[in-house]
């Protein structure tokens, strides 16, 4: 699981160009979206990029951002979903 969490952090940093961040700077339990202390403050465009990562790298197809909302809550929820659904 920890390997997957690290991998997801690296993919997010890459896809969203968060180049000032290192994986260890990201708290996997902090909310990814919204204006939260310690979170990444991601927005709707970032959500679309995450949908692409899921599709491309894990073979998981999400229909839209609404369906993705609970899955994208944090890195930890995302990792859990990927480990259960990856193809």
């Amino acid at each position, binding site marked *: 699981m920890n390997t997957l969490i690290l991998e997801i952090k690296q993919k997010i940093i890459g*896809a*969203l*160009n*968060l*180049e*000032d*961040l290192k994986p260890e700077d990201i708290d996997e339990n902090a909310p990814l979206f919204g204006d939260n202390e310690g979170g*990444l*403050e991601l*927005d*709707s*465009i*970032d959500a*679309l*990029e995450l949908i*692409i990562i899921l*599709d*491309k790298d894990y073979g998981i197809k999400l229909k*839209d*951002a609404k369906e993705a909302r609970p899955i994208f809550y944090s890195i930890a929820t995302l990792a859990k979903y990927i480990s259960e659904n990856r193809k």
Partner: protein
Amino acid sequence: MKVYLAADCVISLNRIFSTHFSSKENAVDHLPDGVPPFVLKPIPWQNYVPSKENKLADETALERLFFDTADVLFSQYKCESQKLTDRFGLIISTTKGNIDLLDGDKPIDARCYLSVMAERIATYYGFISKPIVISNACISGISALVVGKRLIQSGQYDEVMVLGGDLMTEFVHEGFAAFHALSSTLCMPFDAARDGLTLGEACGGVILTRYRERISGRNIVLEGGAMTSDASHVTAPSRTGDGLYYAIQATLSDVGIPAEAAADNIDYVNAHGTGTVYNDEMESKAIDWAGLQTCPVNSLKPYLGHTLGASGIVEAILCMEQMHCDRVWRTPGFSSLGVPKAICVSAHEQKTVRGNVNKVLKLASGFGGTNGALILVKEGFASESKSQTVSGKPVETASYRISSEQIPKGTKPDFYQRISDEFHRLNRPNLRFFKMDSLSKLGYVTSEYLLSNVQLAGKYQPQEVGIVLANRSSSLDTDLAHQRIVEQHLPEGASPSVFVYTLPSVTAGEISIRHKIKGECTFFIQSEKDLNFLRSYAELLMTNGILKAVIYGWCELLGEEYDADFHLLELSNDLK
């Protein structure tokens, strides 16, 4: 001084329309495949056969549309002189211009530069004045009309041809697909089942004039207009609708309608109504907030699709037709209201509350968080424009420049290194910076330094501050990146975070978000850096009482050539 819409023409998908066409009985509905006939019925289209002769040997598809539209406009306009003087202006509104010529593997075709395209058109007709290009995302058309009107009223021009056009291209289609913004059916604005927009392509044009005697059709006046910025997000519209609401308020105030009397004066609202969930939600809030709940509202998007940089002009012309018939057309696809505020979306063609369509409010919103509104009115109902008196004159209070000219060619640092260094030197961490494209990073960092010793927020209301920028290459730097992704035809599609920056005005949007600037943000494209023009337009906004402070300047980037040259203007009386 009243500014009239003297000539008008729309060309879209092998159909042509003008309110000046007399032989309406011969009108045909030439339907593109897959579009149900009922959808197009209210518009008396005629068959459009593109002109046989090329005006230019290497004429593009979009230029052909511009030329054919301009030909119709000149044929309608009663101007005895065959020669255009420097009092006759040309404004072109487009988001992507000749983007169909962009090839990810080849050097950029010169015609992809919007100012080159504009100059090709201007030169053919012999315009003496330099053409003005506006690329303001989906409010471009409204911006172009409002800017044209202001330049006539300020005395720079007597008449202005305003042309707006955009093509339906793979470039644009793949971008909107990446946003999951495309409708699975023909778009259904304001309906509960709506799920996105339908793209269209069109060219629309009008001649704005101060000369009443040169009108051959109906006497419709462009009475007023305004643009604002949400300062909240680059793609998602404001959650509250405040930006569009401010644009409506500023427009009402521009024509002397008291805010509380909106519904007593406006007969019909033509919404942007793209059919995306968030746009229509936001618009309903702004319309409701403005007190226009009882006013009939429609969207013209199901008739023509979303024609992007042309839409403001094209739809304004179709509003003129509805004014002539005193009917508000239906919104095809709309049956049950699916927006949070109970506005009167027109499901059937109808008369208005007062029976006539004398005064129309036209709205638009776009990426970068821009909003625009304008009011069209039958001549007899137009108010005399009042001239604002502003105390104090505009003075420059700050400037800052970041340019590749400051660094010897071929030496380090390259742009990427330099802008990152400059950003870190600010010591104001912001993760958003890293998500931006190069042009936005350049504009963002330059504005940070420009305003480092200025407190705009405490001094002005957010709506009192605006941005007037220009460049040569539009967003071509990022357009190339998006085009290369599109050409790969990846199974996962294009990248939304790249596509969002394929509009130069998004750079102004990023600056407005950072500094909470909610006034007008306008992005011009120029063939070369012309700060005098930008300054005089910024001063016009200030002396007309529209804005109290303006960031104006040049914001150009293509590869390793970049130049951001920003200036801040404030009114002398506000400097204490």
